[in-house]
């Protein structure tokens, strides 16, 4: 499978913090941890903006950055060459990241410290695997998060109970692959 953002979804679950390298306009590099790298779509990720940091100052001056994410099962590392586009301070992306960050903060004992000021959206320009000797990955789940999200979108489009039930049965059959003859 060629490397792409969807193939790295496990790296975006927050089990291991990512790092981001940035550079100021005067050429001074900076490197920092980032709590949350969020999958937006096949070409974009969003990073949690929690503190008014040097990282933030740098990407406003020079939008090119490198994000390194880690596969939580194998230890494989991946580099994302990214370009800062914009910050969203409200809306579905922001609310989704805020909820996820609250969960990560609770797990890390950082409740009250991790607070989302914005979702910094980056375009991913390339992805590469860092050379190394990662562990063997466990078999992937039969139904991944992308598939579930597509199913939820179909359910959300239902306008009444009957169409909701139809959409649920359709989604169970395809793409989830659970036969519904028992119904």
């Amino acid at each position, binding site marked *: 499978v060629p490397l792409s953002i969807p193939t790295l979804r496990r790296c975006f679950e927050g089990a291991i913090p990512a790092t981001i*390298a940035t*550079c100021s306009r005067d050429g001074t590099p900076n490197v*920092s*941890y980032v709590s949350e790298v969020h999958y937006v779509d096949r070409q974009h990720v969003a990073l949690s903006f929690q503190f008014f940091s040097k990282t933030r100052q740098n990407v406003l001056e020079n939008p090119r950055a490198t994000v390194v994410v880690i596969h939580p099962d194998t230890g494989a590392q991946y580099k994302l060459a990214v370009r800062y586009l914009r910050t969203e301070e409200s809306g579905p992306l922001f609310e989704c990241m805020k909820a996820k960050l609250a969960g990560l903060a609770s797990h890390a004992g950082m409740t009250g410290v*991790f607070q989302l000021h914005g979702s910094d959206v980056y375009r991913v320009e390339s992805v590469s695997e860092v050379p190394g000797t990662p562990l063997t990955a466990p078999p992937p789940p039969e139904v991944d998060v992308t598939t579930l999200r597509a199913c939820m979108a179909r359910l959300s489009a239902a306008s009444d109970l009957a169409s909701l039930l139809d959409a649920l049965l359709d989604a169970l059959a395809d793409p989830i692959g659970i036969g519904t003859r028992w119904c």
Partner: protein
Amino acid sequence: MIHAMTGGTDRAQPLDARYAAFIQGPVSVIVASRNAELVPDAVRGCGCRVSRDRRLVTVLVEPGRASSFLDDIAANGMIAVVFSQPSTHQTIQLKGTDARIVRVTAADRAAARLHLRAWSEDLERIGFDVRFAAALHGGTGELAAVRFTPAAAFQQTPGPAAGQPLKA
């Protein structure tokens, strides 16, 4: 612009002994530089050594993982290194402008081995097994060493003080 830790004199002050001990402990080491187009690069380090007078820091990297980083260091000497202990989140960042690639010594190789052991133990405390730690860490084969004078140091433990200059 990087400000010298002395507040403007030519020679940076030695690193505080507490921070020298911290960065040589069970910390994740992430090093960064940038190229002529100001595109930054980052790579995981395999350990760190501080000179006896605490004026020089040497970070160890696996050259197979760090080719573009090493090219950038050779070209411009600009470096930023973040040190973070996984089990406590305590984090600091050092920066320098005079980084250079130096010969790897037996002491460097010993430091990388010790670092792997200590860092793996810290990761075990938060639920990661030693095989995972070893895969992520690397550094059991060929090493490269990059030495620099810390010209600026910053607090980066998550919280409102993140980004503030370190106090001696």
